[in-house]
């Protein structure tokens, strides 16, 4: 009897033990998994939205919380904020008065492989590429068929996939431009612990070129997509930028190819925004000049980076935050006298693009950390074109014009100046004067000849603070060396010559150490 009980007890315990190990199969309750998320065709657009949002916000909570990347303050971590800083703070167009970690290195031009801002840019690029790869992988025709997704759903998802490929190409273009020889991963690499190979800058150029050419057949026609989604024109524009800089990236001149793409962009139905300043307002999504934006919204797309950063950081000193539709300046960004002096005068009375705030500011920068040293810039605003406040005073509505028609005009002109076979000088002059006429409000500023020195300055006047400057200066041979010196270049007040290796940023020390396949860029 007793033994029976013991046996029974042992039996029950054994049963319990075996059956209970099933409890180890705990599945997420709130979070969804890849298996469930891709089963529903309605989810694909949300994942596509993340690929775009990856350029704008820092994570899933807005303005902060659940960051996308780690190793840096979340507010700093957005793609656009980092891209903007890397392209602008390193040049004559902008200085920033903040003592955040290695941020001052940008303008001082003494960055090393340990610079966390450079690392954040690099990590953002690969974050985008990783997400795009995952989406491309999960939306292959085979996978869609496996999940019984067909008809209109499948057709839409194929378009999403082409946009993911465009976004990946965009980030790879940034990688080519800033880092040179970089890790190369595509949808054929699985997620996990492996060491991506390093691709040569020229080979990656070819890859991106081919991708964009292929996408021409797959993307939606220019102007036919929803606002903020990429169409053929965005891909042409990106390809044009790749070709424009081909000589830097590969040593081969491709200005004729660039002009061919630009001609398609220019013919696609975009038109110049009549009033220059309205390209940078809270309602700039209405502009027909913008080819590809990164969007923001005070209520629904919130971040401490992106345009929230640009609009707030430009305000300080005696500037009235209310005049920019915001609740306070961050006292950060100003510019050097070199940019100011490219304009006939700083108030915009002659050239309306000269949007400087001079009251209480000195033209000279004696101390980078003092906001009132250097003219402030009032280009971006969270007020609408009619002066109404954006939807939130902290988080701005203003979209970032990543590609716009004026840039296409100037690139066309430059291509023609650099290679007569690219197009017609008369057309080029027409495009440039269209911009100048808008700036002057009359033909008073029109020019009759074009040369490279004029064009690099004209690009500054038209496109300053739009994250083109570093690439432009390198293409014109003025970024490093002695050919062009600006205030505080090299970390001294009057500026000095800096080493040519700075034309590429270093592969961040963190990635160099974690991936044995990587060779560091020269000079680091």
């Amino acid at each position, binding site marked *: 009897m007793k033994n029976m009980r*013991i046996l029974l*007890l042992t039996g*029950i*315990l054994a049963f*319990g*033990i075996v059956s209970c190990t099933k*409890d*180890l*199969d705990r599945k*997420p309750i709130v979070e*969804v*998994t*890849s*298996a469930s*998320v891709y089963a529903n065709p309605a989810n694909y657009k949300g*994942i596509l939205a*993340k690929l*775009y*949002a990856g350029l704008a*916000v820092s994570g*899933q*909570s807005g*303005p902060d919380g*659940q960051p996308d*990347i*780690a190793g*840096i303050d979340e507010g*700093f971590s957005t793609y656009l904020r980092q891209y903007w800083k890397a392209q602008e703070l390193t040049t004559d167009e902008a200085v920033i008065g903040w*003592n955040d*970690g*290695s941020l001052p290195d940008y303008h001082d031009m*003494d960055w*090393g*492989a340990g*610079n*966390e801002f450079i690392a954040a840019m690099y*990590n953002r690029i*690969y974050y985008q590429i*990783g*997400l795009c790869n995952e989406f491309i992988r999960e939306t292959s025709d085979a996978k869609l068929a496996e999940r019984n997704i067909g008809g209109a759903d499948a057709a839409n998802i194929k378009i999403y996939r082409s946009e993911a490929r465009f976004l990946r190409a965009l980030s790879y273009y940034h990688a080519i431009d800033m880092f040179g020889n970089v890790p190369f*991963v595509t949808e054929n690499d699985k*997620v996990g*612990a492996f*060491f991506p190979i390093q691709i040569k800058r020229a080979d990656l150029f070819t890859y991106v070129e081919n991708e964009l050419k292929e996408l021409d057949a797959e993307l939606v026609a220019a102007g036919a997509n929803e*606002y*903020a989604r990429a169409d053929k024109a965005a891909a042409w524009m990106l390809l044009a930028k790749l070709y424009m800089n081909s000589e830097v990236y590969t040593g081969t001149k491709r200005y004729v190819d660039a002009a061919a793409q630009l001609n398609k962009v220019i013919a696609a139905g975009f038109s110049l925004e009549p009033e220059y300043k309205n390209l940078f307002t809270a309602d700039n999504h209405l502009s027909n000049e913008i080819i590809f934006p990164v969007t923001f*919204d005070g*209520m*629904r*797309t*919130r971040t401490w980076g992106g345009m929230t950063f640009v609009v707030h950081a430009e305000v300080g000193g005696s500037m009235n*935050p209310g005049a920019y539709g915001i*609740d306070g300046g961050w*006292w950060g960004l100003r510019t050097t006298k070199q940019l100011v002096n490219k304009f006939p005068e700083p108030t915009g009375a002659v050239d309306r693009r000269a949007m400087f705030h001079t009251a209480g500011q000195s033209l000279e920068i004696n101390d980078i950390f003092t*906001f009132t040293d250097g003219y402030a810039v009032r280009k971006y605003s969270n007020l609408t074109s009619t002066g109404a406040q954006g939807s939130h005073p902290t988080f701005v509505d203003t979209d970032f014009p990543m590609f716009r028609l004026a840039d296409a005009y100037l690139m066309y002109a430059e291509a023609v100046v650099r290679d007569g076979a690219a197009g017609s000088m008369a057309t080029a002059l027409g495009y440039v004067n269209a911009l100048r006429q808008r700036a002057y409000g009359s033909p008073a500023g029109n020019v009759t000849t074009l040369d490279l020195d004029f064009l690099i300055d004209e690009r500054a006047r038209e496109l300053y603070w739009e994250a083109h400057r570093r690439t432009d200066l390198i293409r014109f041979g003025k970024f490093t060396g002695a050919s062009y010196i600006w205030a505080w270049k090299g970390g001294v007040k009057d500026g000095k010559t800096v080493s040519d290796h700075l034309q590429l940023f270093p592969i961040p*020390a*963190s990635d160099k*150490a*974690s991936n*044995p396949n990587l060779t560091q860029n020269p000079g680091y």
Partner: protein
Amino acid sequence: MNCRNLIAKLILPAFLFLFATTALAQTKTITGKVTDVNGTRLPGATVTAKGQNVTVATNENGDYSITVPASTTRLIFTSVGFGMQEVAISGNTVNVTLRVDVANLGEVVVVGYGTQRRKDLTASIVTVTAEDFNKGPIVSPEQLIAGKVAGVQITPGSGIPGGGSRIRVRGSASLDASNNPLIVIDGVPLEDAGISGSANPLAMINPNDIESFNILKDASATAIYGSRGTNGVIIITTKKGRSAKLRVDYSSMVSRAKRIEVVDVLSADEFRALVKSKTNATQQSFLGNANTNWQELIYRTAWSHDHNISLSGGIPNIPYRFSLGYVDQQGILRTSEMDRKSASLSVSPSFFDNHLRVELNVRASETENDFANEGAISSAVGFDPTQPVRATNRYGGYFEWLDPTSGLPNNNAYKNPLGLLYQRSDKSTVQRAIGNIQFDYKFHFLPELRAIVNVGSDRADGRGTVTVPKEAASNFRDSGFFNRYYQRRKNDLLDAYFNYNRDMERIGRVDFTAGYGYQTWEQENPRVPRVNAFGTVIDSSFYYKAEHTLISFYGRLNYTFMDRYILHASVRRDGSSRFHPDNRWGTFPSVAVAWRMKEESFLKNSNIFSDMKLRFSYGVTGQQEGIGNYEYFPRYTYSAGTAQYQFGNLFYPTIRPEEYDRDLKWESTSTYNAGLDLGFLGGKIGFSTDVFRKSTKDLLGFVAVPAGSNLSNFVVTNVGELETKGIEFTLNLNPIRTKKFSWESNFNITFLEAEVQKLTLIPDTTGKYTVARGGISGGVGNMIQALRVGHTPYAFQVYKQVYDASGKPIQGLYADMNGDGVVNTDDRYLYKSPEPKSYMGFSTQLNYLGWNLAFTLRGSFGNYMYNNISSNNVQSNITSTTNFLNNLHRSALEANFTNNQYFSDYYLENASFLKADNISLGYDLGRLLKKQGMTARLSATVYNAFIITDYSGLDPEISGGIDNNLYPRPRTVSVGFNLGF
């Protein structure tokens, strides 16, 4: 059927069924008295029938009566502080005299899943019982043993009422996973994670209910806890009912806490003078006429009181203890306060001739917190002392810096410290209940074999609200702030094991345990709406729920041969739901040997050595705390409504794939330990030393992975190695122990050294791979510490400051450490660390004719501090600000930096210290009352009595080593009264 149901529906009834019809055996009753060598009767001594698990306690006169099975031949007598005695039964009366055994050699030590005789231990385990606890106004249990145990570092968090501590057993074995020891209360392992709304999850346990702490340090002891043993295990045993007679204990304590010092900032007059000499007319125009000492204003003298009552006794054969506690503690920072009501019940009946012993423990507490806005601390340091507290304005009448153009509060300036305090209400209520019931059945046909089933549960419920009125400057732009949060956690446990314990002549003593454990945790954050100050719903919090489960099989063998050769082996196999089925199971073995040399013939009769034991152990433990529950899944996360993206005119919530490592597995630590225990002169001197080396591999780290290989740049993955080496010494002195006078002291010191050995998947050939850690105040995202191979974890990463001939630091001039001609981030070097090279504790107790004097000293040496208060408040506080002024730290005058030099090693200071944690004096009035069993004690304690240090800041003891915005720990004087009858 899920497992919780299984426990409820099958296993428990099965046990009850098993015991339902057991016959009663033949018995006999033995009586007698227990005294000490002086003839004083010992109440509360434990009498156990050997091999039978029948136990009674002596009454207040030291008498006992025990009914034992007729077959019983020997009785075992134990009492705290005395040596064990084993006496043969002859006749019906057995009187014993217990000898003081200061080394506690005969005591039973609580180990994982059972107890062991201290004699038979191979492991490094330290027991601290109630009589050795730190005294004074202690609200959180771990403070009871601060400074008492070698290898255990308890760093109090801050002065926040009810605040917790950082507990480290032998340093840190992990980087990003948890470094907290496993805490087990009466067999129920507590969850490591805290609960929303609580300053400290441990503070929900009333320290007055605690009987003892057993700290398991080496792998020989902790490997039985397998995946949770790496950081040491602290087993807390609570007080139980003992004697048959009702005993009532009441204690009450009143405390007064005051801040010791304030941060050394400029006075109003000094500030005025400096502003006038250094700044332009505009800046000078911001100076006010007031003389406000902001730090004086935000602190107060705080009062606390603490009352406890307990009833214990036995309703025939059912010992019980019931206690109630209430503590109300004010913080010295105005508006901070906590109060806790707690109740506990313990019942331990025996059935079937003591073959079935049941132990039921239930404890519950409710803590109410008023959290002060600690932002007021740094604000009070930096706020312009020439400004008045009050002003006529729309911000609640508090003076605030305004933006001259908009008239709104200036975002870049400090807010009024008193406004911060009084214009914010942050309250929480946390309820927690922990209970367990343990069945311990000794088989009738095989009394050496016991089956033990322990079922437990730990539930916590935390909720709170934060309200800032719409006129408050801090949230004026958002029209105030209102937040509500709610979190529930629960943790259910089943442990079932067999224990076979047999003492065989000539063959030796065998103690074998084998069992199964199931524990599951659940966390739920119900959705709560968030509204603004107007009551408009802004959004609602995320709903969240997660679970994880740990299933274990374990076994342990302890074999003692000839009372001198001891072999110990254990193995545990753990399965965790946090890992993919392929990596889910981990095996954690340990093996140890010990040699009680004292038992050898050459020492047996030595008068000098009363004990000598050598111990060696090796074991592997694991770690999985501190990581997410579903990290191995390819998960997707929806964005909040504020992180959508626009397509056309519509906004789409985004869906983000999360980074993951499918191959995630246990972090594993192998530990070697060698120990020597010595006792001299009949135990008057006890000495113990342990040398250990802990090597952790497959560190669970949140680290950078190769760009492009995963879905983010950092992933929680198994990467890296870390090694900690150390040596501990403990010296116990009990030179005098007479009826009139006794004196005992404990001294312990620990030397530790930790080194990161690997941080990347591949060995880092660059030697430069650095993970930045240690965020500081000032700038955004600035980090002052780093992890790098070959260095101490969290070493400070700083520039080497260059000084001029007069010894003054030169602003912005740093050494070019790598000699490349450029000073940039690559020249930041790793220097010193916040962790001490050694730490010590010294406590002593003197008893003389009813007087009791006790104090505890704690020291820490070689630890460095980054003085962030000083680095953050330099001259730019007056020269670079526009439309407002900030006060300066006095050090700014010496360094003369005009801009913040956050990364200069100028701000690193040696923060070694020696602290007197408590000095306590008590007097036992019970001696005057001359009534047996009656105790009445008066006591006075000074807590945090003095600090000896070279560190220039307020307090050298800040875990993490970054001094910024610390809620200062007060000095507390308390008076207490205890009454028992």
